[in-house]
């Protein structure tokens, strides 16, 4: 099938205003948007810049806006979207080149929630026990691949980039509710902040943007509740 791909182009190096480039591409209905971008890069315009790695939705490299929606380019098949297809970089992080944004602030914000197991418990030479039910409590939020699709779909984040954002909250949730972790108090203290969990206005954009199907808004609500219960 013949596709018309419209891509928002920009390059910080030249600093020129961003522009829409249009490419006519021959594709199969089952091709991924990432395949189409690769086809353009390979045979039409080698300078097109986008991140890619695993190409099947587990590494989180290729979050972008496809026809107005935050998606991973490797998870969307061309037959599922209407033609012409509009592709833009995710919103709220500085664009560096074409579909590539600067992710540094995103990862810095992730690090703020102490995203690692905190435990003083002596562990011995065997595994700690955790029941399947205890694991279930956190299983959903352990799936996060840090692609930023949720954070950059959040209307609060767009207007205030000091908001810690859904992705960081998901990763905080993963530890706060882990039966083995003892660092919740510290994390909840951090998330109480004006730029923490309560800035969320439950728009649910994050939940529909998550390529891993994580119930992001629910996780944030659980954190809010935990903060209230602990204060």
């Amino acid at each position, binding site marked *: 099938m013949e596709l018309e791909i419209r891509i928002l182009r920009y390059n910080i190096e030249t600093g020129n205003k961003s522009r829409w480039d249009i490419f006519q591409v021959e594709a199969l209905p089952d091709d991924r948007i990432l395949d189409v971008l690769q086809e353009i890069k390979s045979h039409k315009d*080698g300078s097109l810049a986008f991140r890619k*790695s695993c190409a099947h939705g587990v590494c989180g490299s290729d979050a972008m806006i496809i026809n107005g929606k935050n998606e991973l380019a490797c998870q969307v098949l061309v037959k599922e979207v209407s033609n012409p297809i509009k592709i833009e970089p995710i919103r709220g992080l500085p664009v560096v080149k074409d579909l590539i944004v600067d992710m540094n602030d995103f990862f810095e914000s992730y690090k703020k929630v102490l995203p690692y197991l905190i435990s003083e418990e002596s562990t011995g030479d065997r595994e700690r026990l955790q029941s399947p039910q205890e*694991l279930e409590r956190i299983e959903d939020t352990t799936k996060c691949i840090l692609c930023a699709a949720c954070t950059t779909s959040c209307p609060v984040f767009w207007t205030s980039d000091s908001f810690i954002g859904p992705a960081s909250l998901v990763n905080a949730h993963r530890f706060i509710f882990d039966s083995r972790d003892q660092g919740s108090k510290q994390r909840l203290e951090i998330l109480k902040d004006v730029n923490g969990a309560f800035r969320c206005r439950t728009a649910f954009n994050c939940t529909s943007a998550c390529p891993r199907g994580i119930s992001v808004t629910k996780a944030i609500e659980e954190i809010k509740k935990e903060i209230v219960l602990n204060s």
Partner: protein
Amino acid sequence: MKVIKHTFDGVIIGAGGAGLRAAIEAGPHMNLAVISKLYPTRSHTGAAQGGMSAALANVEEDNWNWHAFDTVKGSDYLADQPAVDILCKEAIDSVVELEHWGLPFSRLDSGKIAQRRFGGHTVREGEAPAFRACYAADRTGHMILQTLYQKCVSMGVTFFDEFQVLDIKIDEGICQGVVAYEISTGDIHIFESRAVMFATGGFGKMYKVSSNAHSLTGDGPGMLFQKGLPLEDMEFYQFHPTGIYKLGILLSEAARGEGGILRNKNGERFMERYAPSIKDLAPRDMVSRAIATEIREGNGAGPKNDYVLLDLTHLGEEVIMEKLPDITDFVRTYVKIEPITDPIPVQPTAHYAMGGIPTNVNGEVFTDEKGSVLEGVYAAGEAACVSVHGANRLGTNSLLDIVVFGRRAGKSMVDYVSRTSRIQISENSAEDVVNKITALLEKEHNEEYSVAKIRESMQESMNSNAQIFRTEESLSKQTKILEDLRNRSKKVTVSDKGKVFNTELIDAIELENLLDMAEATVASALERKESRGAHTREDYPERDDVNFLKHSFATKDGSGKIKVKYKNVELGKYTPMERKY
């Protein structure tokens, strides 16, 4: 071009499982940097699905000796047995350690880590399939990568994300550091460092149909091979039996571990004919060969008879959704099939390099087949060849390999740094890299010599001529094709002349590494006139222990000619015998 200099005691290239595990070991003892061309959490360890084996005996009686037996037999007796012993023995502590760092393993009702069956893993040396693979649903690799990264964050490890290492500096046999290209700016960075570790992963992108990420281009092995250093056992490349038809996306062996069955177009469970005792849970080389044979004989399913079916329908929704949620998602997303009710079209997909940079069990890199060690240089993970996988790796043993030998390589770096003093990297160390990049940027673009065209020809021809079945004829043909592609690649041009995220330039550099991998694979395969593990020579269908119970060591001279030498396998308590399952 801007050149920036840094000084560290140790540098780790690659931030997947092996690199991060080494960083955790070495970080507290030295001034350490981890350099990765991706953000660490994008590394391909995250795509591993099914599990990581260790004889925890949480479900049934087990011990690491049985694990070692299976690994050696699975390797078609090419693995070095002392190294396998280390792998299987240290597996237990490695899994426990990951749990202590927070890895959310799936659990038994008792609260212990759950374990599942996997191909080639048995109890009592082949008696029955073993419950040995520790797992986190079917996203075990994701959880390992996240946990190791989280641990690194907690320790404050220094990362250089989206930096491509282009050169290693070795002077009179001693490592001085590396030179890297900062992808977001185009600046050159010199990392003066007396210890350097390669943890750059595999190189499945030399094939067209592969489970591998775009980033798996053999950058570490390529860098050393270009310096005249050897690559070991490159002819042994694993094809995973169950890649999604055409796409090659991995569907974990855990699907069969949980009871999934492979069927041909007649609905026949054909593995009963190839491996009567463990059937669908035979090692990957055998299952892939069986699938390829079924397809050749006209038993493949579909309009072109070119795939087989992975049938999970009898497992029931609950098991599928609880144990195999991610692969179920992949099938729904990419082939629009519902695995709960319909069988899935699959075909073998290029998956894992058993070969790579030769190392000893401490991650030290060999400079020749005699076992001489390159001072200050280390490797671990898929980029390396210890060898614990021999001619065919068992499922789950790669996640094990990265943590066991990642840790050991990290430890070796600590030892080395503590017993040596600072070195000075040569003044002009960035010169080669600067010249190379300048030349690529200055050369006028010619579509005839675009990166993509050469890469596509390489991938397609490797798929046709150096796949599961090989012959003298197919390999000689491929040698010629690669020669031609190499000549074309010398003239490669890029259209992007910018500094910021010039990913076309990176593609050109990766292509060079991939061509090296392909050439070493084909040259080593041509020389190995026997069939063993993943290497099937139709013109030499038998295993030949008299002449080939040996590791190959391929090197390239200045003119580009590849020479293959051999090193004896280190045997142990298991004497090579016929491999039946």
